[in-house]
């Protein structure tokens, strides 16, 4: 069950983050929140890619960092142009997150059913 490793990784990461003495500057808090959303979306996208057997590690890594950067840049620009881009990012990443999750769920459940059939 090697696939449990990422889950352990995320739990380990949260513990490390909470225990660490570092705190983001208060002003960057909204940017970090959006970056986290983008990263979660990328991770779920990667898992979805695995289920569809077209996972590509470079696409995954570049997407992980690229999405976060673009999300932050978009909100930064929005702030300069006086538009609240946060909502756009939340809606887009949020809906994609749910779609990706739905696909993963379907894949896992289908696999389980097939096993039962055998």
């Amino acid at each position, binding site marked *: 069950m*090697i696939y449990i490793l990422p889950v352990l990784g995320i739990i380990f990461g949260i513990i490390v983050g*909470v225990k660490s003495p570092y705190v983001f500057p208060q002003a960057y808090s909204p940017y970090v929140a959006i970056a986290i959303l983008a990263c979660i979306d990328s991770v779920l996208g990667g898992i979805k890619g695995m289920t569809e057997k077209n*996972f590509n*590690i470079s696409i995954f890594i570049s997407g992980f960092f690229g999405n976060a950067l673009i999300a932050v840049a978009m909100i930064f620009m929005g702030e300069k142009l006086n538009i609240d881009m946060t909502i756009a990012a939340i809606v887009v990443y949020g809906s994609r997150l749910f779609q990706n999750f739905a696909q993963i769920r379907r894949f896992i459940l289908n696999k389980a059913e097939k096993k039962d059939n055998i």
Partner: protein
Amino acid sequence: MKSYKYAVVAMTLVCTLLGAIIGIQFKTVKKQPKAVDIQRVSELSAELKSITEEKDALYERLMESESKVREYEQSQSDVSNSVKLLNDELEKTRMFAGSLPLTGRGLIVTMSDSSYNKQENVDPNAYLVHAEDILSIINELNVAGAEAVEINGQRIVGTSSVRCAGSVVNVNGVKIAAPFKITAIGNPDTLESALKMPGGVIDSLAPWGIQITIEKSNSVDVAGYTGIIQYNEAKVDKE
């Protein structure tokens, strides 16, 4: 599903990084100052009340000590003539500094906010008495030779300040609210005519309906300055 062992390693690393960011963000959000809740407000107001009481008690003690000092001075003045002279000098200096309560001929100017119906499209601020209005009245009184000026019990001395502080006015660091009672000692007729001069202060405030009444009197009382004047930076230039 083909083996994604290498991918799982990458995924684990990325997830750890993501988790760390999430963890730090948790802490950041937790540290964000929350809105002041009701309990805090009541706590603060209780604290304010006790501090105000303490301040009043201290003020009383200050007054006591001052009267004691005055008593000592009085008893000392009997000792000799030179001490008496010095005492007179001290009294004069105190009067000059504004720390003594004074009485004499003068007038009382009362300013209150406008009772006009507020018109639409006009800034409601225009109907209120502002620190600037008070300052211009004080200025006019001083020009006309007022010897001592006080606003609602706050004596105006060399270091006095009059400034806007939200809905009230801060004079010598003490908040006072409308109606403002400006008491001035000086020739009542000169002072009155200085204020009522055509195009003068009162004329400029009249369109806004700010109510100004001037009451001449043969005996008005002006309180002494109770604050402390400290010279930390200034020295006497002996050249």
